[in-house]
């Protein structure tokens, strides 16, 4: 493609002479190869500049998350410390009544595990599926360490009758395989029954689907409110003269730069029952002193605070798109007889859609994963799925469950991120 070459190379070619018909550089190499080489070199140079950061992000970010997600389908808390019983489960099909061999394996494993002081880990693992069984394992472990005589079934049943519970055996069978999808089943309020079929958990234990729905619903609502509040502001900023709009822009950017915790704190102060807003309402006589509104530690608090925090993320992309809209289109529409509403609806609004899409996606992505604000102002009805992940990490220590919930949330966020990249392009992400 001679016409794609730059002029310097062309001059070099004529100077080098045409001996075999191929274009050559000044030092006699075929031009095609020289070009390919210099392009490869440039590619390598560019890549080398990015490499240190890419390696850094892979090691400190991508790999840790991958490792964490692995826990969602891999948990060897039981199988590692109860090898003989796990072996028995592997050899006997589901539904097989535990025979004396199984009881012997159980007793041997319990004894070994109690000696190695790992019985707590085993108990914790089974406790995820059958609540209240951790103490069964630890207390039995203490007694078994003092010695246990065959027949083991009778001996163990004598220590605690709960050992005969078929639910317990079913849970142990599930846990005997370190690779399991059960945490994902639990994350969508399902479980494996004693016969291995997938069934719904009892109604009062169905929390996760509801929480996912609430997270998505609240995020949608917050995205919508930021749109309603952000659109007029962005429009005003985009149409005002530069000097005025730059001044007003500070009012948008200041919240953006202010610490998240500061903003959350100020909403706590404002919305409290003894706070500023309730005081003003009482003073105005809108509500009586006894009827102070409960606006915080519930969903209302989460919605108000998160809307305030995420509003700049809607305004900024909208503003940068609206600034480029040519005002003569609307004027043309008006001159052709459109009312101001029609001109807005048919001419102006469609042109803002790219900014609206960018802002809405960004706000929604950020809202879905929000943790701090719901944790502080959400009470119990304003908690989102992130708070459940944190609870499993720090309180119940059911790390596999936290990982399964995190995997589902991450999947949703990455899907939206992909859509964002397709629609808007990450390059067009702008800050401030």
């Amino acid at each position: 493609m001679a016409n794609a070459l730059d002029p310097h190379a062309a001059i070099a070619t004529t100077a080098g002479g045409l001996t075999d018909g191929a274009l050559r550089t000044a030092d006699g190499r075929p031009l095609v190869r020289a070009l390919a080489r210099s392009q490869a070199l440039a590619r390598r140079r560019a890549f080398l500049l990015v490499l240190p950061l890419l390696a850094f992000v892979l090691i400190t970010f991508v790999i840790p998350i991958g490792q964490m997600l692995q826990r969602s389908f891999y948990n060897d808390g039981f199988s590692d410390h109860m090898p003989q019983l796990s072996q028995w489960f592997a050899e006997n099909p589901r539904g097989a009544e535990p025979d004396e061999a199984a009881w012997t394996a159980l007793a041997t494993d319990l004894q070994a595990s109690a000696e190695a002081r790992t019985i707590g880990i085993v108990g914790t693992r089974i406790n995820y599926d059958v609540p209240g069984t951790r103490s069964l394992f630890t207390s039995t472990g203490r007694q078994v360490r003092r010695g246990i005589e065959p027949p083991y079934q009778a001996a163990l049943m004598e220590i605690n009758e709960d050992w005969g519970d078929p639910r317990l055996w079913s849970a142990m069978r599930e846990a005997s395989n370190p690779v399991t999808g059960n945490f994902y089943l639990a994350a969508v309020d399902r479980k494996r029954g004693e016969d291995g079929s997938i069934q719904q958990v009892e109604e009062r234990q169905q929390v996760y689907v509801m929480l996912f729905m609430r997270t998505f619903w609240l995020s949608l609502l917050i995205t919508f409110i930021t749109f309603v509040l952000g659109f007029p502001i962005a429009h005003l900023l985009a149409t005002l003269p530069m000097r005025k709009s730059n001044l007003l822009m500070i009012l948008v950017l200041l919240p953006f730069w202010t610490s998240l915790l500061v903003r959350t704190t100020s909403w706590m102060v404002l919305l409290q029952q003894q706070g500023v807003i309730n005081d003003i309402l009482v003073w105005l006589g809108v509500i009586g002193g006894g009827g102070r509104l409960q606006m915080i530690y519930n969903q209302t608090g989460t919605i108000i605070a998160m809307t305030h925090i995420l509003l700049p993320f809607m305004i900024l992309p909208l503003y940068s798109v609206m600034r480029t809209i040519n005002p003569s289109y609307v004027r043309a529409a008006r001159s052709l007889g459109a009312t101001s509403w029609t001109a807005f609806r048919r001419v102006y609004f469609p042109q803002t859609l790219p900014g609206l899409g960018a802002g809405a996606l960004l706000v929604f992505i950020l809202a879905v994963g929000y943790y701090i604000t719901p944790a502080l102002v959400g009470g119990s009805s304003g908690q989102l799925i992130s708070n459940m992940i944190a609870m499993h990490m720090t309180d119940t220590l059911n790390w596999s469950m936290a990982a399964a919930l995190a995997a589902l949330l991450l999947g949703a966020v990455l899907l939206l991120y992909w859509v964002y990249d397709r629609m808007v392009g990450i390059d067009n992400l702008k800050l401030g």
Partner: protein
Amino acid sequence: MAVPTYATPLERIWHYAYLVICGLIFFFLIAPIVVIIPLSFNAEPYFTFTDRMLSLDPEGYSLRWYRSLLTFGMQNPDATGWAFWSDAWQNANWVKAAKNSIIIGVFSTLLATVLGTLAALGLSRPEMPFRRAIMAILISPMIVPLIITATGMFFFYSNPCELLGIFGLPTNCGRLAGTYVGVILAHATLGIPFVIITVTATLVGFDQSLNRAAASLGANPRTTFFRVTMPLILPGVISGALFAFVTSFDEVVAVLFIAGPEQQTIPRQMWNGIREQISPAILAVATLLVIFSIALLTTVELLRRRSERIRGVTPR
């Protein structure tokens, strides 16, 4: 924007209503931040304006919450003069938190800025391979929910060498959780997307022929970078660095999960204060942080204008 001359009376009314609505939304944006400033001078332990404050009685205002910031955690808060200040510097919880925040913020910002600027330079070259995919990975720390990032880091930093076991290497090389290095690395990761975004945005308007001109005049790549490229992209680099610093300075989730008691930062201390017993001392910290963010915002705005001027981008 003025009302066009052809507007109907209804449109005029709507126009003024629109301005009022915008005013209310601006009020919603800014009022929560402004309201805490006077409240932090409250003489009483309440979160609302007392009657004495409303009547502008000087008795209603005090600096007691600012003083309590200093004395909280001190061994001898009643000392005077030099002893008081040296005690505060060494023992006061909030002072310790501020020191930690600054140490962690500065080092994570340095790391993020150096690596991020290099990468941005590579990413804005037209010949960069896999540009889109790499960009997506590098920006992802900003998109992935913080709780997921923090959870992953919690496991990884407890035993960073666990994966080396795949290669048959020793898997025990100490912990990063509970160390300054761990928190700094975590915060650098979170600050990187901001550096990348601001520096690549600056490089969009960068005229590559300037580099070629420098090279043709005999400058080697190093000289070209430090004498030609760097001065031109410096405003972008600095605002990226400020973004990274603010990210670290305001970050609490990763600190909750991987920092030890020695690495308590200001947001971590605030988190404790808000969750346990919220006192107006929190408002005093908040006020200081608001002043800090106003200073940062001013710097970034000035830098942005300067950058647009020297790059010859017409101001908006």
